[in-house]
């Protein structure tokens, strides 16, 4: 039951790379899974490694209110799962899992952990002979074996194929249910599936924080909206939508409670107004729809179809179980409660 806070403000310099500044505050309540979501190069792995104590930094890291900034990694009591597993190649799976046990007071039994994660039969094998999914389960077992106060996970599913990723993601949801965790990923699907709280990171800074609902439904910037998979519509390029909004949602347009009309969003700034809406919120073919759009492309995706549509100078995506034909006109409906100014 550990509450973790980290307030990192440091510029890091790697060999041959430009200096990179991380200025980010992270607060994770006990047993909460906090996902740091961001594109490659946003600094999320650096942030995680700094919390782990791998890099010297300015700022403060605390666990249950106790400052641990000066503690080396081995004295922080954390567990870490790496994207590329980082299993010790000269040890067996069992030796890997019990690696940290001698340093902790009440470690977990390696065989029991391997069994829980479904890889008990691999105990005597060497890591180079394992598949990616097997390696990551072993790496997860190694981190859990030391009964970490905080689990740090650096894109643990990124190197896995889709079925393995889905299977391990389901296991992770269970495993992380009763441990404080910081989970770094660029995958929004994973983030939404496992996060209690999401921090969106860009260029070394946290640009939005909140529940998955907050971040996915109410992105605070076009960058966050695009990265979380929403359509971002520049209203200056979409006069037909803008007219509809003028007519119908004027008093309550802004879902953050400001009461400001999205079409007036640029009245006090020079930037163009944008609204975000998730693809699954757009309805196709409603006779009372807001506007008409042209179907540009239809892509089959598992149980649905992703439809790319254009109207005015705008391109949006929507999902449809029964997709319209390409190059036909179809009406689009934008539920007002799902439109969000950003």
């Amino acid at each position, binding site marked *: 039951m550990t509450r973790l806070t980290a307030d990192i403000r440091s510029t890091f310099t790697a060999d041959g790379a430009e200096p990179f500044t991380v200025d980010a505050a992270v607060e994770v309540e006990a047993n909460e899974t906090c996902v740091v979501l961001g594109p490659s190069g946003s600094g999320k792995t650096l942030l995680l490694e700094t919390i782990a104590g791998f890099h010297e930094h300015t700022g403060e890291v605390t666990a249950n209110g106790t400052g641990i900034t000066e503690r080396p990694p081995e004295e922080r009591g954390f567990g870490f799962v790496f994207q590329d597993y*980082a299993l010790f190649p000269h040890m067996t799976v069992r030796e890997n899992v019990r690696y940290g046990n001698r340093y902790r007071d009440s470690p977990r039994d390696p065989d029991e952990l391997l069994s829980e994660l479904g890889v008990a039969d691999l105990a005597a094998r060497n890591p180079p002979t394992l598949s990616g999914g097997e390696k990551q389960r072993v790496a997860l077992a190694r981190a859990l074996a030391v009964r970490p106060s905080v689990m740090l996970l650096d894109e643990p599913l990124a190197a896995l194929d889709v079925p393995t990723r889905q299977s391990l993601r389901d296991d992770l949801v269970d495993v992380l249910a009763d441990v404080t965790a910081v989970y770094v990923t660029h995958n929004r699907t994973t983030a939404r599936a496992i996060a209690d709280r999401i921090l969106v990171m860009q260029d070394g800074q946290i640009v939005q924080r909140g529940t998955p609902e907050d971040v996915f439904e109410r992105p605070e910037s076009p960058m966050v909206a695009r990265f979380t998979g929403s359509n971002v519509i520049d209203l200056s390029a979409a006069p037909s939508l803008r007219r509809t909004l003028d007519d119908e949602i004027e008093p309550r347009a802004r879902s953050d409670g400001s009461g400001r009309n999205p079409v007036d969003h640029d009245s006090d700034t020079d930037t163009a107004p944008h609204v975000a809406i998730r693809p699954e919120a757009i309805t196709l073919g409603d006779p009372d729809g807001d506007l008409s759009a042209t179907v540009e492309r239809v892509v089959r995706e598992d149980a649905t179809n992703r439809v790319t549509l254009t109207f005015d100078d705008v391109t949006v995506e929507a999902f449809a179980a029964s997709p319209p034909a390409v190059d036909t006109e179809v009406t689009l409906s934008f539920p007002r409660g799902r439109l969000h100014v950003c």
Partner: protein
Amino acid sequence: MATGTERRIEITAVGRMPLVVAFVVGQALAFAAAYSVGRPTWYAYFVVGSTAVTAYVLDGSSFTVATATAGSLLAVALGLPLFMFVARQTPSLVVEKALDPSVHRVLYLGVYGPLLAALLSLSFGVPLAHLLASGFPGQPLVESLVDLPLVVPHSVAGIIILFGFGKGGAFPQLSVLGTMGGMVLAMAFVSAPYAVNASREAFEAIDNRLEYASRIHGANEWETFRRVTGPLAVRGMITGGVLAWARAVSEFGAVAVVAYSVEFFYPVAGETVTAQHAPVFVYNTYLQGGLEESGAVAFLLLAVSAVIFLIVRYLTDDDTRGGTP
């Protein structure tokens, strides 16, 4: 229809080892034939020609044939003198030298002294290599210093050692001129770069996330080195040690200047004896007894070195396992 890049003979189907054996046996027979008729030059032509033909048969590409042919010229330059050297030895003289106790002492010193130098190089070189692999401010300066002995003429290296550690040097109490310690120091001076660089490459090849994984799960830096970094780099260290040992075995200039002749404990006789480092002894024998007599001693030194080198390579030629969990 075969194209220019198509392999003429599928090696995996034929088997690699029989081809190698056939090639080596063919070369040996050709050399024996050429040497027995007093025409070793013919063998040089045979090497180049047979290599080109073999490359054509096995691969068929003009590029491979050209590179193999060019490479065979260097192989002739390196191998032919060695074959001639071995072939021209007088067996009775080799046996006589092999039974000579003074040669035993030289051979013992020629293996033992470099072994101490290699251990000395590794003892201090491995920590330095780890540091270099991790990186630190001013690293290029230290790297240059480490590599300096590679470009310094070795007689000059001997002079430098005497200035640094000899009479009036930094450690006056340390006796290096004409001592075993001086000889080992001279050997370590010229061979340490091999130990450091091979170890550093081994450390650099280790993903630093393995060290992170060790640290975050409870091991401190010492434990991480003992359980992870060290075991994973041990083959590089051994390679560095073997290279340093081999370099020390062949050292002449620095040893001749610093410790031309040394006293050391010789366990076979159970007493302290005096001898010269093998290359120095071979050179002296050449000056005093001519090519034939020095060749016999050189042959013995070559044989001992080759056997030890091959044994070490064989012992270290396994997979990466072997660490202490």
